[in-house]
């Protein structure tokens, strides 16, 4: 038994003597990070984080404390009990996981020869090799994370652990356009995902294109996965229990009412190992339960264009009179942050379309006679679930003429209504999806909307 597991058990035993109900969450994480500038490793960081969170129910109220320090179990329980005197009313404890114990996460991947530090170094050097191969200047961060999570409550003890690499890259073109293409992804072995090299090879041909204004007439809109993530963010926010409880969700009152194209579905289903994904990244850990102890399970949020369910932590589910969905995490499933409260978060959402045109990126691009490709957008989080319209700016976009990328767009204002782009104007999406993570995580395809879908 690890030291962390022993501490969790010790705190649980102390809490049991003073609380009506209790839960202890412990995380032990080691990160090793190499930063790459212009294809060359230029900074190294490592971090070790051991943190504990104790939540107690006492006299009908909840008290929560977290610590990274060596507090003894008794002191931590006393702090939690004191906090409970001023805490919120307790709701009934979450129903326990039907299969407490080891999480169904895959066994941590092997670092290969040379251990953790050299594995990260190899990946970082891979970005440098890509720079040579595609002719774009590569900047980025490669990190290796090893995380163990323990949760203990009167119902039992659960343990989850995983080890993975995260690659965050920015490819910069040398031409007058100054394009900067971001890419994010995860991998369980020290090798760059195939999708990164493929995308950069495509994009490298655009670096020397002229900089042009967006067309003023109506045009088709092709959204890259990052832009699709931004477009969906108001909806994902509005479908969270947090927004529903706050009274600021534009979608909570419209469950069951058609909102998007009838072919579109949005599901949260972290890729169960060892199935892997389209990018060859071998999937990520799927926790057995969330930080409330509620089992994680696939959830369909949008079903054939109709908002079907909200996603919840235990607390927001109780507040809404709904069923907990296993989405309550401190931070998110990949990176627990004890200082954050448990909130509902999507860890593996995917957008799909039944019976609509799907294909490769080149297929969608080739079908556009006159349009824009929006790589990244600003403005998706601005209204926090209050509005289905993303208003802001195109950070990076391209002009499309006759099925080919013909220029780089000047940054410009844009307003996109997700109900239109993913509704009446929706034409199709790619079968391949990329990992995108900001506020919430998922795998998003390229999406094509017909003329009138955007007002750039």
């Amino acid at each position, binding site marked *: 038994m690890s030291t962390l597991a022993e501490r969790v058990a010790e705190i649980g035993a102390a809490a049991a003597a003073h609380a009506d109900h209790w839960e202890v969450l412990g995380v032990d994480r080691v990160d090793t990070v190499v930063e790459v500038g212009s294809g060359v*490793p230029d900074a190294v960081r490592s971090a070790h*984080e051991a943190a504990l969170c104790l939540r107690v129910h006492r006299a009908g109220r909840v008290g929560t404390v*977290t610590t990274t*320090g060596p507090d003894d179990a008794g002191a931590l329980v006393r702090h939690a009990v004191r*906090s409970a005197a001023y*805490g*919120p009313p307790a709701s009934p404890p979450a129903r326990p996981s039907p299969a407490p114990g080891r999480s169904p996460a895959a066994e941590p991947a092997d670092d290969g020869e040379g251990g953790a530090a050299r594995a990260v170094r190899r990946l970082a050097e891979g970005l440098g090799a890509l720079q040579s191969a595609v002719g774009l200047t590569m900047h980025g961060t490669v990190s290796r994370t090893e995380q163990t999570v323990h949760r203990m409550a009167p119902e039992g003890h659960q343990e989850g652990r995983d080890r993975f690499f995260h690659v965050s890259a920015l490819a910069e073109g040398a031409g007058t356009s100054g394009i900067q293409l971001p890419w994010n992804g995860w991998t369980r072995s020290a090798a760059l995902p195939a999708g990164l090299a493929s995308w950069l090879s495509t994009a490298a041909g655009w670096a020397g294109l002229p900089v042009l204004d967006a067309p003023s007439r109506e045009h088709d809109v092709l959204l890259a996965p990052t832009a699709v993530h931004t477009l969906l963010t108001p909806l994902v926010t509005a479908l969270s229990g947090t927004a529903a409880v706050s*009274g600021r969700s534009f979608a909570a009152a419209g469950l069951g009412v058609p909102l998007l194209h009838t072919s579109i579905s949005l599901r949260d289903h972290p890729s169960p190992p060892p199935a892997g994904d389209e990018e060859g990244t071998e999937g990520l850990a799927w926790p057995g339960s969330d930080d409330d102890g509620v089992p994680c399970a696939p959830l369909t949020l949008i079903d054939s264009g109709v908002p079907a369910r909200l996603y919840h932590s235990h607390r927001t589910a109780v507040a809404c009179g709904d069923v907990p969905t296993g989405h309550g995490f401190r931070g998110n499933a990949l990176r627990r942050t004890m200082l954050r409260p448990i909130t509902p978060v999507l860890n593996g959402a995917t957008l799909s379309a039944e019976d609509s045109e799907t294909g490769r990126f080149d297929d969608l691009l080739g079908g556009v006679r006159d349009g824009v490709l929006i790589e990244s957008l600003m403005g998706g*989080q*601005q209204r926090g679930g209050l509005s289905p319209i993303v208003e802001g700016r195109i950070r990076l976009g391209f002009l499309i003429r006759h099925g080919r990328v013909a220029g780089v767009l000047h940054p410009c204002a844009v307003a996109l209504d997700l109900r239109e782009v993913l509704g009446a104007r929706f034409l199709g999406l790619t079968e391949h999806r990329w990992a995108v993570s900001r506020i919430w995580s998922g795998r998003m395809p390229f999406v094509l909307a017909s003329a009138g879908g955007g007002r750039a």
Partner: protein
Amino acid sequence: MLLTCATVFGAAGLHADDYAEVRVERTRIIDLVWRGDGLESTLTSGDEGCCARVAGPAGSSFASSTTMDASAVLRQARRNARELGVRGEPLADRPPESGEYPCDVGEAPERVSLAEKTDLLGGYHASALAAHSAVAGALVYYRELVTDVELLTTEGTRIGYRRRDLTLQITVYADGGAARTAGSVSVGSGGDFSVARGLAPVIESAAATAVDLRGAPVVEPGSYDVVCDGPLAGVWAHETIGHLAEADHHRGDAELRKALAPGRRLGPSGLTIIDHAGHPGARGYVPVDDEGTPGGQVDLLRDGVVVRPRLHDRSTAAAFGEAPTGNARALNFRHPPLPRLRTIMIDPGTAGDEELIGGVDRGLLARGVLGGQTDRSGFTFLPAECRAIRDGRVGGLVRGVVLSGDVLGAFGAIDAIGRDQWRGDTSASCGKQGQYPLPVSSWAPALRLRGLRVHPG
């Protein structure tokens, strides 16, 4: 000071030409959240740990840990530097700093009991919900941090001080049918809890704004003359010239260096923007940075002309052959310091409110900030509240206003600067490279910008 150079550096096996620094932090945090119709959570946290940075011929590295064994963390940093072999960057010279920095201003939050805080803030939440039958919900989010920091370097810097930060954000939501509307209150302080007292009138006003916005017309898209109040102007300065001046952005970006070349005119005569160490009690008070450089003043623009366009840590200062400016800041022990803003200040001008408003035929009066985003070229801001201006007179509320434009182009659009400089802190914090929320301050008068692009959201 609990650490000594002998105990920390002596056991780390450093070479004579290695530079090393160790920062140790012990933080106590209180988070209180009311959401929807009641108290959501009370969280008290102890967050402590240390970090070490080494730079020498064998390589450079940064390591952090929640353990408090500074020597062990230093050894880990040395091991990383050796195994991963990244060449260290030179650091600009500056004299070793030692001392302690007073931070006691006003009513220290740690001396106010949890019971009193929950009574006061819970009362605000209840009053927001009761303000009008159309109020659909309210968020009250209070956060308080009290941190003891120690910094030691092999060059002889030895610093210990306490820093405090508290923020309170209150947002009131009204049911507007097709669109929800919001009004907000935002206060902050570098250690004076009294800023959270006596807020009932402004909460009532925020609730009234949320309710009144329901019936307000959506703004027509187009070009408007916009009068920004002090809080919005301060955030705008921070997000535009402020972030552009962070020297790490200048590395490898010849276009940015050219755009901010000293002597270049960006704005009108009278537009002076400065980043400085701030005043005790303010969120952006940084008397000494996280590398031990005392805080100085950096004149970014004076009378519309670029003067000193770079805010430095020691690494960027060395790269540009300039002096460190005291802007090396880290969110906490988990992060290495980066060039960051502290207190950005726009000097007051000469225009009174009547002149600012009276000179506008068709425009908007924008107050506060609900949200916004910038990159190095463009910005979008959502003011917390907007009123129409017609023929020099302030009219009714309009909703859905999104201001956008080019970061550098907007300076040329300023044609009037208010004479009253706003100096209050808000809960708005700064984010960069995963380090959020870093406390900052802004002092600014109202600004009038001609021909700003506005579109409805």
